[in-house]
């Protein structure tokens, strides 16, 4: 609105005014951006300071809850690591996530190479099927999966999770890898074929190195979703030695009516740390994966 200057105003005045406007708009942008960032970051901030407070301070109603008034303590963390099943959950989560990522990446790289470069009967149908299974939410099919995992005697075992988890990662990884592989120029394949490459060599020596950013993005995605998965472990696993971090933290660190808020927040933060740290280092790949899901294809 403010840039609509009367035509009679001099050129110098217009420029001066619009520059002033722009600076004002910039300050306003920073101000509102700050408000939104506060909105986005205050829950993790509050979890962090709670995890450093003493039980005494947490249970007292006096004072500002948004800062640490009393002593800073690491008790909640040491207690978590030495007196609870938390390290077991961590180990189980690492095993399940590692297996899921490995399975998902092998399956989706092979399939994406095939779907991007080779044709066979039903390959376009399969590509559509991949996309549709990406759209199937886990809440739709967890009950039949519960029965299937039970039928295989894998209920209450993290191997049951390894069996089911690929379905949350494979469709999306395959989908974005088809996009990345299709963008590789065909001249590269032809040159490789002339040099006598077979399909395996072509995949290993050309497609994987050239599409490496896409493969990293897909790996990060597979890691993040299997680390964060909550519904399947909550439904399929119940004993402490088999639980993973998400379900374990939510179900077992809440004891009775007295909530151990400090310990609970410390647990939630430690459990969330690996994906957050990975994100801090590989943000660009993370974002590339996120945006290419809907834009590639």
């Amino acid at each position, binding site marked *: 609105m403010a840039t609509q200057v009367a035509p009679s105003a001099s050129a110098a005045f217009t420029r001066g005014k619009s520059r002033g406007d722009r600076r004002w708009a910039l300050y306003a942008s920073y101000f509102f951006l700050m408000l939104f960032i506060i909105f986005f970051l205050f829950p993790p901030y509050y979890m962090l300071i709670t995890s450093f407070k003493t039980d005494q301070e947490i249970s007292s109603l006096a004072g500002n809850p948004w800062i640490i008034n009393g002593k800073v303590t690491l008790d909640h963390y040491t207690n978590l690591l030495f007196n609870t099943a938390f390290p077991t959950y961590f180990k189980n989560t690492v095993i399940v996530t590692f297996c899921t990522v490995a399975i998902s990446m092998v399956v989706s790289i092979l399939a994406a190479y095939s779907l991007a470069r080779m044709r066979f009967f039903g390959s376009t149908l399969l590509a559509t099927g991949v996309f549709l299974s990406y759209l199937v*939410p886990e809440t739709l099919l967890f009950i039949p999966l519960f029965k299937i995992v039970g039928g295989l005697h894998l209920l209450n075992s993290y191997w049951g999770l390894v069996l089911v988890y690929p379905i949350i990662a494979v469709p999306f990884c395959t989908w974005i890898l088809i996009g990345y592989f299709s963008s590789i120029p065909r001249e590269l394949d032809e040159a490789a074929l002339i040099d006598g490459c077979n399909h395996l060599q072509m995949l290993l020596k050309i497609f994987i190195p050239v599409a490496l950013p896409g493969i990293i993005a897909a790996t990060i995605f597979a890691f993040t979703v299997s680390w964060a998965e909550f519904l399947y472990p909550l439904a399929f696993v119940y004993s402490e030695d088999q639980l993973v971090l998400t379900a374990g933290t939510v179900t077992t660190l809440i004891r009775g009516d007295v909530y151990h808020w400090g310990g609970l927040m410390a647990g939630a933060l430690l459990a969330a740390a690996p994906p957050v740290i990975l994100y801090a280092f590989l943000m660009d790949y993370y974002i590339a994966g996120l945006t290419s899901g809907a834009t590639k294809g």
Partner: protein
Amino acid sequence: MARSTAVANGRTASAAPSFGAYMRGFWHQRSTLAFLMCMPLILIIGGLVVYPFFYSINLSLLNKSETHYVGLGNFIFLFGRSTFWMVVRQSILFTFTAVFFKAVIGFICAHLIHNVHERGQRIWRGLSLVPWVIPPALSTLGWWWLFDPTYSAINWLLEAMGGPHIPWLSQTFWARTAVILVNIWYGSPFFLIMYLAALKSIPEELYDAAKVDGASAVQRLLYVTLPMLRNIVAITMLFSTIVTFANFDIVRVLTGGGPRNTTHMFGTYAFHLGIQSGDVPLGAAVALFMFPILAVFAFFILRDVRQRASRV
């Protein structure tokens, strides 16, 4: 190992040369290899999506102890329950409110980040994506603590500013507000990232041309930015609608469906009936109710993605 297979191959070849030659030709065909490479994918989709889907339909037709078929009995039973209709209403309310606010907040934030100095944009973008990176089941624990009836730090702030004491998770209206708020907090960064990527792809010349023609900031937004973003806005909202509609983690951790089942969504209600109460067929029936709605949205997404693919 290698030698024994070679011998075996030789033997089959000498026994039935024509068949062996045919098999070799078959194995060396490109399409066979292509199909074999897709085999694990087909097994995963078949075993973990297609089969469970039909199995789910089968389950939903059984009685509670899964001994005999009751036809549509489970569905008819659900139609007669007021709780089920509440779940339907709450799922729709939750989805539309949350998607609307996520889209608006994502849109505003993307513009704000796009407006500030180029150097700082990376950091702002990085910080605003944090809610999306923390596993939602865990960040919701933090919100749960923020909404605690006695110690609520949000209420402390509100009261410090002279506001009311809000019974966040114990009254229906506030509990519904709370689950929607947490979902907005968790989901807005996704919209932000999608819009920001789309904003960056709009050529600057369009804005310069609009400026030369005397378009105001509002006009540039309405006639340049929005038409250029229309496609990505549509597809992001469709995606988000599916994910929000099928939400489980947030409601499960924050309210567990309470107070008095008023915050249940299809996913949490199906979990409540099927896993916790042990009525697997009824739970399967509840979950299946999501299917027609999801199918409609999936149809539109597929159409949009195809259009984009054919245009590029």
